[in-house]
């Protein structure tokens, strides 16, 4: 099939977005589109995207790029009109991870993910009214899913006693 015909739908979505905003766009394959966005434009673009049919925010995820000192936030948004998954990517500084919340746009779909990412990665979502942790109630260490959190050391210090003979193997075990 002609390549232009094959990606007709995807190209139409891309044209709509890039006519309004300056973004990097790429088509991964059929019905999968990636958009790279700067941190400031995220809320505006999300608002626009919801207007053109992307009503279901199915996931938000964080990748900890420790060498580049960045968090990469990925928003997966689904459109029921076009049957297309749009992936929005932004990067934020991993030492000061703050970003605007999208709760005002996608509401409860976003809320549970933002709470989870705040709990596990320490990302601060501005304007989110409720960021209480889901499971780690009294946690005051570094967030556990950060790559610089040494969880083996943490577990040994917290739960195992070095002087107890039966627990020695836990300390000697190779990492």
């Amino acid at each position, binding site marked *: 099939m002609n390549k232009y015909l094959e990606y007709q739908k995807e190209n139409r979505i891309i044209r709509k977005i890039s006519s309004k905003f300056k973004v990097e766009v790429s088509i991964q394959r059929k019905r999968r589109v990636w958009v790279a966005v700067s941190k400031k434009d995220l809320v505006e673009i999300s608002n626009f995207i919801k207007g053109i049919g992307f009503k279901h925010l199915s996931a938000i995820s964080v990748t900890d790029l420790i060498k580049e000192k960045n968090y990469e936030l990925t928003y997966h948004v689904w459109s029921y009109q076009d049957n297309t998954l749009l992936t929005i990517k932004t990067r934020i500084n991993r030492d000061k991870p703050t970003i605007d919340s999208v709760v005002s746009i996608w509401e409860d779909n976003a809320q549970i993910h933002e709470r989870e990412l705040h709990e596990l990665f320490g990302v601060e979502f501005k304007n989110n009214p409720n960021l209480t942790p889901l499971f*780690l*109630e009294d946690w005051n260490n570094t967030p*556990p899913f950060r790559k610089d959190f040494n969880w083996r050391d*943490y*577990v040994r210090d*917290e739960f195992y006693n070095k002087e107890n003979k039966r627990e020695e193997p836990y300390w000697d075990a190779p990492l």
Partner: protein
Amino acid sequence: MNDMFKKQEFSDKQKKVKKLKTQMKSLWVFNWFNSCGFIELIPLVGSRWDMERFGMILTSTPRHADVLFITGYQTIKSIKRAKRIYEQMPEPRIVIALGSCSMTGGMYWDSYNTIKKLDNYIPVDLYIPGCPPRPEAIFEGVQKMMEYIKNNKKMVSKS
């Protein structure tokens, strides 16, 4: 003065044991779970293993329960709730821990969010090992508990 105090304590214990012995004919069980141990305890309620023939029955509130089953690992969040459940139970109370997770952490021995030894948080009377334990093992454990109470003059629960 001291002797009197001891006597009083002893008779209290005796009362507890007596009460326990009568209750042993109908154990009411409350089950606190957040892992696979619960799924292994469910067959006991059904017709195949049928724990009601031993007088055991599941209650919906810890305030009516004699036995607390703690099944599987506890997270740092859920152990707080387990403590509160334990405090709500009337005396004399028995705690039975199911599965290897409650003894050593099991396969979660290096997890940052699960507790490793249940004994550090709640006084446990009986551990039933297994990953998860078979229904027969649970019956054997409960039977041992009953025999222990019958033969022993000591109070079972540590509190």
